[in-house]
């Protein structure tokens, strides 16, 4: 790939690098944030990053199955958000805060 084309020709790699960057940002958030809701949002971000690479693969390989996977991921993400938020509401009702350390009761 000639270096002059990097900015003018958009290839699969561009999308993959973008997707990886989004994924890393999401992962960092999951690992470092204190607020459980933010952590969940970062998980959504990671899922979206994966969706992006699915669509990119689908486009550049000419197969539609990638879009189906996105469809599934979307559904599962919605389900996960619903349950997660319900749990968070329970935690909030108990502690009046949604800090991740309130989820540390299950330990060895």
């Amino acid at each position, binding site marked *: 790939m000639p270096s002059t084309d990097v900015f003018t020709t958009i290839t699969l790699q561009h999308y993959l690098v973008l997707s990886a960057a989004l994924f890393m940002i999401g992962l960092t958030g*999951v*690992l470092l944030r204190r607020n459980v809701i933010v952590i969940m949002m970062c998980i959504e971000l990671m899922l979206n990053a994966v969706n992006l690479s699915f669509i990119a693969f689908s486009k550049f390989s000419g197969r539609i199955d990638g879009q189906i996977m996105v469809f599934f991921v979307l559904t599962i993400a919605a389900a996960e958000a619903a349950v997660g938020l319900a749990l968070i509401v329970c935690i909030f009702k108990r502690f009046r805060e949604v800090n*991740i350390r309130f*989820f540390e009761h*299950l*330990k*060895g």
Partner: protein
Amino acid sequence: MNHSLLMAILLLSPFVGFLINGLRWRKNGPNLAGGIATVAIFISFICSVLLFVDLVSMPQEARRIAVTFFEWIAVDRLKIGAGFVVDPISAIMILVITGVGTLIHLFSVSYMHHDKGVAKYFAYLNLFVFNMLILVLGDSLVTMFVGWEGVGLCSYLLIGFWFTDREKAAAGMKAFITNRIGDAAFLLGMFVLFMTFGTLNLHELNELAPTVAEGSWLGAATLGTLLLFIGATGKSAQIPLYVWLPDAMAGPTPVSALIHAATMVTAGVYMIVRLNAMFIAAPNTMMVIAVIGAATAVFAATIGMTQWDIKKVLAYSTVSQLGYMFLAAGVGAFGAAMFHLMTHAFFKALMFLGSGSVIHAMHEEQDIRKMGALKKYMPITHFTFFLGWLAIIGMPPFAGFFSKDLILEKAFASPLGHPLLWAAGVLGAVMTAFYMTRLMALTFWGKSRVPKEVHPHESPWLMTIPLIVLGFLSVVGGWIGIPHVISAILPGHPANILGDWLAPMLKVPLSDAHHHLDAATEWTLMGISVVLAAISAAVAYQFYVRSPETPDKIAKALGPVYQLVSKKYLIDELYFGAVINPLIRLSKNLWHHVDVNFIDKITYVLGDLVRGGGSLVRTLQTGNMQLYAMYVGLGLVAILSFVLMR
């Protein structure tokens, strides 16, 4: 309609009835539940008749409708489909099961009208019919065994139907456990047969049966059939496993009529008839069957003479009659066994239903000492019961005469028979006549001993109609198997329909295929048994109607012997002392010493090991989910670097 559809309806109709009533057992009232159940069985009956008609229209040698719905088990050599067969033998069975079943369901609608669990009752009854149909139609021993276990389950459920009564619940368990012993033997028999012949298909087993009689006791055919026969003694209440049947009378009376007289208990006989070629090949087994059958016939009859409970008398009578069927099977007269099975189903179901009618009228009183002279209160019940009585004591031309006579003749004349077996049979017949007459006399005739507060009355028409139908069948049921000597003197010479019908399915004893008595001997044998039975009945009439004090005197004179017999030879006590209690003691010892000291210790040590290991590992589990996520990330790093390095 095509056959598989008919067969499916035949089988599934009771099952659907079971589902409907079973799922709505709190809601369905007696009329609805009974209606559903009766209609379900009646549909099956119609299917049976249609199949039967089809079967008749086929050429004699090709009378076989086989349907395989799907492949059920396929393991290496073992291939078992959900296959069902209607052939001349099973056709008789399904007609009896669904026909008599319909009548008994109809009877139950009225009989169980005031019971709270009536829908549950009908659900069990339908489930029973479903399983019974699987049993008789199954084309392999395994399919048959499914039905075999299923009817056992239903029997247990129905005997213990009033399970709040401790004794009745115990009776159910007794039946179930006793049957389990037989079932274990049945399973072993299946193993032996499969090991030797490589198939469990009934048809194929009959084809593969050795053509030469096995002399050894340990030959495959002998051992296998012997084990199967032990299974049959459990289900069909023969010595030594008969003890559950009298107790099974704890269930509702129509159940006793359907399960413990007409259908389920005959499963053992039916199984032997199905596998007749295999049994014929094992003369030792045949001998055992004949001896046990004859012994049971006599033994149970003696107990029957001393019982006071109307249903117990009938129960011992059933055991005794089943003994006759085994006797017939044992001497190779399978047709006679089937014949007696059928006629017995008619008249014994009739008598049980009649006793149910009596019990109903007497407000749940079963002791015949508190009855008497019911004839004038319940004319229809009395009349039909009277017909049944004539049939069972073998008076010509009632149904029982023909079948019992055929059995006795074969016991005498068959190459596998013996005059001693015949003598035992005749003895049994004499005693049967005695105790049945005693029952009639104490219940319907003589002086009334009915307590004042009880007002017997005739039962409603829903109960009497089945009685009338069965009474009719008890009269004419035997006419399809009229022996040659009698038909020779009758106008029109009616043929032996049943004999011809079953002939292609049955194998005659190997040594002498065409062994016939001359007419004179046959007449003589017939005359002896009939006359002796008639005399015995007359004696009983004399004892219990004319001079009611005589039996007590005789009982006193016999003293300990009478006591022994009336306590059923103390067989139950013997079983408890010799088998059950030692077994319980052994189990308790094993528990206290082996289990606690040895096996438990091993598991404790293992558990401690696991716990120790766990407490080591759990330091990793801090509860901090973000750390967990980091572990996952590290795992990803490891996997990715592995993939990239490769």
